[in-house]
């Protein structure tokens, strides 16, 4: 039996080890490329064990190092963190296999550097998932931003430079100007950087100031991509597709909404929020972002740009779920982290497959190509259904809970928002398989999709279906999360 401390270490350090070993193996590409999936498997094993321990009612924790009195780097596995950690590590396995296929198929330069920072970003995401206090959370939030910068600017051309600038200025700017003082404000008010399952602010914070503190958090967490600080996400799409798939559909943005949920539940606390109504304004902001970005997505012809706006809209579901401040909605928001991740990574995998295989990146070019890449478009179709929330795909559960939550907290309009957005989702996502399968082909293209791209795409597509049938352990976790201590 491995102690919990070691288990946390194994889960966190295996991506870091991959990151450190990769440069040593740069002359042996095959060994180097095996490292990523291998690290993913070890890390996921640890994440599963940690999740099981939470289900058994335990709380693994690890104090890594004390920086100064009252400041330390520590890790605690919470139900929410266990879910995010599992999502990030499991999907990393498939994304790592996929990126080998993509980078080779596309003959990208500087592959070693790419894998180094890729693993580094996963490491940072896992550290965020298991962060035991606010400062650890903040530290790895920044590490994640900085480790993804070389990936976003991978092409090292002028467009990448511009995108990189926007990416850094929004993410670093918001986190330093707003998130950091918000964290320190909590530190000053409560006297420690710790979080707790039912929030730490109740009785210590003047409720009149709570909405302002919340606003500092909400706009400080740029990775959650709420309007008007969402621009970095479409800009980051200049990165190679494996980056967009794992990082900008899963690790980075989910780290954002994860942080948001953690702040809403473990710092403010659902009861404190619903009692004071501090998050009422956030409900409307998230609803607005949700609808507006869905509409913008319709007008994007670039596949990745459309998926990026769709991601922003889906992230708002999660923030909205947290802001509704009811236990049902929080459960729905947490489940949405899993289901959306599986669905969206599939969609991005498909976008990359089409780019590598047929050198196409525009939706209007896809007409009639469904028959030449049937599996890929089938995967896209299934992934889309999950995002839209049609049974039997995983996405239906989270939407169901979110709607129940909206009803529970009495926001009837929000239910309407969910319905309208579902229609919009269907509209802009279904266009892609529809064009591929039902439209007439305009020109012949030679298509060659590497097997290392097809397999992970089909696996993640299959995962979205599996999630429908095996949602129970995750649902149990979320009910532990919202239970009172």
């Amino acid at each position, binding site marked *: 039996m491995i102690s919990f401390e070691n288990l946390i270490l194994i889960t966190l350090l295996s991506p870091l080890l991959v990151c450190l070993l990769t440069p040593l193996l740069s002359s042996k590409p095959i060994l180097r490329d095996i490292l990523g999936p291998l690290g993913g498997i070890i890390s996921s094993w640890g994440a599963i064990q940690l999740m099981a321990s939470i289900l058994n009612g335990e709380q693994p924790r690890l104090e890594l190092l004390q920086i100064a009195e009252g400041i330390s780097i520590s890790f605690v596995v919470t139900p929410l963190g266990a879910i995010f950690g599992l999502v990030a590590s499991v999907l990393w396995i498939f994304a790592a296999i996929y990126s080998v296929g993509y980078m080779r198929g596309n003959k990208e330069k500087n592959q070693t550097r790419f894998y180094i920072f890729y693993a580094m970003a996963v490491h940072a995401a896992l550290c965020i998932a298991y962060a035991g206090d606010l400062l650890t959370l903040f530290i790895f939030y920044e590490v994640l931003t900085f480790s993804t910068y070389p990936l976003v600017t991978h092409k090292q051309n002028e467009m*990448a430079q511009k995108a990189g600038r926007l990416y*850094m200025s929004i993410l670093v700017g918001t986190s330093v*100007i707003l998130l950091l003082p918000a964290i320190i404000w909590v530190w000053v008010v409560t006297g420690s950087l710790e979080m707790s399952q039912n929030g730490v602010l109740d009785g210590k914070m003047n409720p009149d100031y709570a909405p302002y503190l919340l606003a500092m958090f909400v706009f400080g967490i740029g990775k959650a991509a709420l309007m008007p600080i969402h621009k970095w996400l479409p800009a980051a799409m200049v990165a190679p597709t494996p980056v967009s798939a794992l990082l900008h559909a899963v690790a980075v943005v989910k780290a954002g909404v994860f942080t948001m949920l953690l702040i809403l539940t473990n710092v403010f606390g659902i009861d404190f929020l619903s009692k004071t109504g501090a998050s009422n304004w956030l409900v409307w902001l998230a609803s607005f972002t949700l609808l507006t970005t869905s509409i913008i997505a319709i007008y994007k012809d670039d596949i990745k740009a459309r998926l990026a706006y769709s991601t922003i809209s889906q992230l708002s579901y999660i923030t909205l779920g947290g802001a509704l401040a009811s236990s049902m909605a929080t459960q729905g928001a947490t489940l949405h982290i899993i289901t959306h991740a599986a669905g969206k990574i599939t969609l991005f995998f498909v976008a990359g497959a089409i780019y590598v295989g047929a050198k196409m990146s525009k939706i209007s070019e896809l007409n009639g190509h469904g028959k030449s890449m049937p599996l890929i478009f089938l995967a896209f179709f299934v992934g889309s259904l999950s995002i839209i929330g049609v049974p039997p795909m995983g996405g239906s559960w989270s939407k169901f809970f979110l709607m129940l939550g909206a009803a529970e907290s009495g926001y009837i309009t929000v239910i309407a928002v969910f319905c309208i957005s579902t229609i919009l989702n269907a509209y802009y996502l279904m266009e892609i398989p529809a064009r591929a399968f039902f439209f007439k082909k305009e020109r012949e293209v030679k298509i060659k999709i590497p097997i290392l791209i097809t397999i992970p795409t089909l696996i993640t597509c299959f995962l979205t279906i599996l999630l429908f049938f095996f949602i129970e352990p995750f649902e149990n976790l979320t009910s532990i999360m919202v239970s009172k201590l």
Partner: protein
Amino acid sequence: MTDIVIKNLPILVVLCPLMMSLIVVLIPNIFLSWLLTFASTFVAFIFSILLYQEVQIHSTISYALGNWAPPLGIEYVIDKVSIFPIIIITLIGFLTTIFSSKMMPDEINETSISKVYSLWLLAIAGLIGLVTTGDAFNLFVFLEISSLASVALVAMGAQKDKQALVAAYNYLIIGAVGATLYVIGVGLLYGITGTLNMADLSERVVDLKNNKALIAGFGFMIVGIMVKAAVFPMHIWLPRAYAYAPSAVSVLLAATATKASLYILARILFSVFDIGDNLIINTLSYIILPLSIIAMFAGTIMAVYEKDIKRLLAHSSVAQIGYITLAFAIGTKASVAAGFIHMFNHALIKGALFMAITSISFYIQKRVTLSNLSGLGRAMPITFFCFVICSLSLAGLPLTAGFISKLYLIKASISADGLWIAILILFSSALSVIYLWKMIEALWLQQPRKEIIIKENPTIYISLLIITFLNIYFGLDASFVVDSSTEAAEKLVGVSK
């Protein structure tokens, strides 16, 4: 033997570089003069570590110079406050001396090198003396020793770029004005209190509340020191002096010179005078606070528009000094501690950045501007790596020393009900990311105009690596800096606050 050394440590730490500077000037051999300089800075560093241990035991060490008992004789005081800048100065002095071994022969004529090292030691001795002395007039003497030596060092840059003469002249005139103001202040205080010993002074000023001569004297002293510390708007000598001085000299000056003056500022504000006094409260909140905030933004904005990298870093120093004086201006125990923490960390950060930039300029044999940084990151990976780490440290990103400074500074200002100050600090540090990022982008993303092959020199990058390592180390284990700053602040501001 060891007993005598321990007993006389407060004077030895000053004498060691001071005496050596007189010897070095006589030695014509380049290597030998460097070696002696290196040895004496190293010994001074060891002495300061020993002193630190002594202070942990005895808390305050008073040393009567020539056995003339204070307050009549000159007293050297080493306590938990003054040990802090001593460690900064000796540590940086030691590291920059290693760094200078390759830089000096490149920029200075063979015949002048031993003179430069003599001045170099004189400047270090002056700075250490400034911090150790407990006598207001002796302080003036050391202030002038270090300033004049620094001016001469800056002027040495003229062998490469004639602009250095203008810079040195500016520095000399403005510095002399500052020193004169200070000595007028000391004169006025001496006139009404009849003492020059600072501890004695602090007891006597208590009875003289609202005395006009006292207020005037205080004003002269503070303004004089603020000139030396380059507090906005008295900073105009600084960018030129740092930019045109020989490489190693700019590293030494940037990391240490203003720190010593800032320490004196804190000592006068909190130790000679009393924080509870209206005079101090008004000075802090109506003069130093607004000036610091302006400095934070003015320095950063000037740095954003600057193309010459050494000047850019110098402007950034003005902003960073703003953070430190701002911390003093808030005037609580936590904030003064934060000021001291940043003083230490900023010495490490700026020292490292200047080292990185001057070594780049050594490799490419040109002044470093934004445009000729293009693509150099790939040609000199070690220097680039250190530069990135220390830039992140300056910007205050986690796991670096700079983050610890920011953290305590923000916490202190929020605790003192100054959320708006906290936001302003963070806003200006976010602005500083702009100029740092410009440099990193140029080094990393832009293509070099022509292929450059550079072989990095170990004697140059070893000290850069050490100081970069310290930047990370003090970000991960800040207890030394935080604890000693807190003790220093406790001593200065008093336990009550």
